[in-house]
């Protein structure tokens, strides 16, 4: 009994009802050919995506800076001996701010804050969001209707609004900002999780698992989660970028990490007044911020291509 090789029949002939195959199931059907019909870009992307590499380089740089700042910074963060608004050069490579603090030092600690904010928010958002999304994904009918519409409404509420409320309650700090951003993110992640869960649950292998006598908890851990995580991870990477931006915006408004911490957003705010006299203060944190966010977005895109080659670049 010879079967056609996997290569020959990567596409099924469907003789009956059109079965709309979605996301995760489709995923590996085409890994055989490594291609996505309909998009030339998809076809040209190999297994190691250039986006992923570029993203890793950018993010890696920021992470490296943050790590180095843990052990070494050129000056103490609150060392004000530098003199007011010294232009870039030696000994202050990027110059100083109005208090005479070294800008490079602040940028380096700022990297740490940005990463902490992103990771913290993602951790909170993912923990709450995935649980809520799973719950909604398994809920039926009106409960699901209610939950999903509720999520739709919540999603429309911007992170900043929520953060402002929480800051009003708890006073500005990195923790508050991260908490607020994390909460705001929860709805987005929950909604995505819900959709992914619904999609996976509609697939036959879930029915097969159930008729094999597999219990619901094991269906979740054994089938649902492994099949949704690639898409989820891609999205979390994107959310990470948004979280970093949100923290910067909060700090810009004075609602983020309080002053001794050199958050990039706060640095930008402080440097606003000296756009002309000391432009480094505005340019440097901005560039790093953009690098980090672009970096994680590239990683997200790259991950999508490698983990999930058939999914079109949504968003």
């Amino acid at each position, binding site marked *: 009994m010879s079967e056609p090789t996997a290569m020959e029949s990567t596409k099924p002939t469907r003789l009956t009802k059109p079965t709309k195959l979605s996301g995760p199931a489709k995923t590996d059907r085409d890994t055989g050919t490594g291609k996505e*019909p*309909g*998009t*030339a*870009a998809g076809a*040209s992307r190999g297994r190691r995506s250039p986006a992923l590499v570029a993203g890793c380089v950018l993010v890696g740089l920021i992470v490296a800076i943050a790590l180095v700042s843990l052990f070494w910074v050129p000056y103490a963060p609150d060392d004000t001996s530098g003199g007011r608004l010294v232009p870039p050069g030696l000994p202050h490579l990027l110059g100083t701010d109005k208090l005479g603090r070294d800008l490079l030092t602040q940028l380096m600690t700022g990297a740490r804050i940005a990463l902490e904010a992103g990771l913290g928010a993602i951790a909170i958002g993912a923990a709450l969001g995935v649980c809520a999304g799973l719950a909604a994904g398994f809920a039926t009918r009106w409960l*699901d*209707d209610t939950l*999903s*519409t*509720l999520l*739709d*409404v919540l*999603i*429309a*509420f*911007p*992170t*900043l*609004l929520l953060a*402002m*409320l929480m*800051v*009003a*309650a*708890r006073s500005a700090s990195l923790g508050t900002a991260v908490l607020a951003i994390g909460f705001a993110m929860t709805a987005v992640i929950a909604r995505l999780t819900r*959709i992914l869960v619904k999609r996976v649950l509609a697939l036959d292998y879930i029915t097969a698992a159930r008729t094999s006598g597999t219990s619901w908890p094991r269906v979740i851990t054994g089938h649902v989660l492994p099949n949704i995580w690639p898409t989820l991870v891609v999205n979390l990477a994107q959310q990470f*970028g948004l979280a970093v*931006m949100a923290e*910067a*915006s909060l700090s*810009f*408004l004075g609602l983020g990490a309080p002053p001794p911490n050199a958050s990039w*957003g706060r640095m*930008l*705010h402080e440097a*606003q007044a000296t*756009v002309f006299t000391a432009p480094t203060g*505005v340019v440097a944190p*901005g560039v790093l*911020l*953009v690098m*980090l*966010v*672009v970096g994680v*977005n*590239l990683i997200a895109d790259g991950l999508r291509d490698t983990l999930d080659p058939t999914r*079109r*670049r*949504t*968003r």
Partner: protein
Amino acid sequence: MISYLLRRLAFLAGSLFLAGVVIFLLLRTLPGDPANSLLAVGASPEQIAAARHEIGSDRPLPEQFVTWLHQLATFDLGNSFISTLPVGPEITSRLDVTVPLTLLSFVLAVLIAVPVGFVAAHRSATWYGTLISGISQLGIAVPVFWIGMILITVFALQLGVLPAGGFPQDGWAEPGEALTSLALPVITVALVMSASLIRYVRSAALDVLGSDYLRTARALGSSFGRAMWRHGLRNGAVPVVSVLAIELATTLLGAVVVETVFALPGLGSMLAQAVAQHDYPTVQGVLFVSTFAVLVIGFLGDIAQRLIDPRLRGRLSGGAR
């Protein structure tokens, strides 16, 4: 459709009430004494007590809630703790800035994003297709305030062609002046918004471009442009519309930053200030009005989606995706 509308409206009302309760409770659980902000450092405890009594923050929660609901029913959003002036009229006057700002940005963003996103999809293999994707990628990563700062520096401070901020005191009584002062903020928001919209439009366009019905239309002799016009546009709109609704709501409420940078007397800056002052009635009022706006936008988005996509009609939840 009618029954859907009714159910959806009922849901709208329910959400609104729920949102009201949540907003109220959220605010009351915040620590910090509103009366504190009323008084300069030299106030006596008696003065504070008197102030509290006047604003009603010394009464039990349920009583305050009922009062609030009662006020809402009569379209009264109460008086500010701080200024003791009614909240409603001020919100209305702030909306004069925020609503045009949001809508204009929104329209501009859509005008930018739809053609650009389409080109990015249609020409995804070419260098400029990639370039567009790259730029939109970058656009998403640039904070609003940075763009705002740069635009101010270039157009207001260097070139001096547009005002750096502010809004005419007489508002829309001088439409020309009002529009000029909104120019930079609108461009700022539109740039940021279109950066992310382009990605949605691009992916919707990619779906359309790869679709069977488009191929069928072309096989039947439609030119590509015609097929896109007749079939592509509407099909591409389905996923984009749901995103648009969210973007619109986000911009409406997320105007704080841009209003700060451009010194606009909008709802966002009003809220920011009220939050800082623990001015509950104001925060409450702004939040409530915002929630209402968000729900209505969502409602309209849903209706729009259902008008476009007959497959969704009759389904209460679930957008395009």
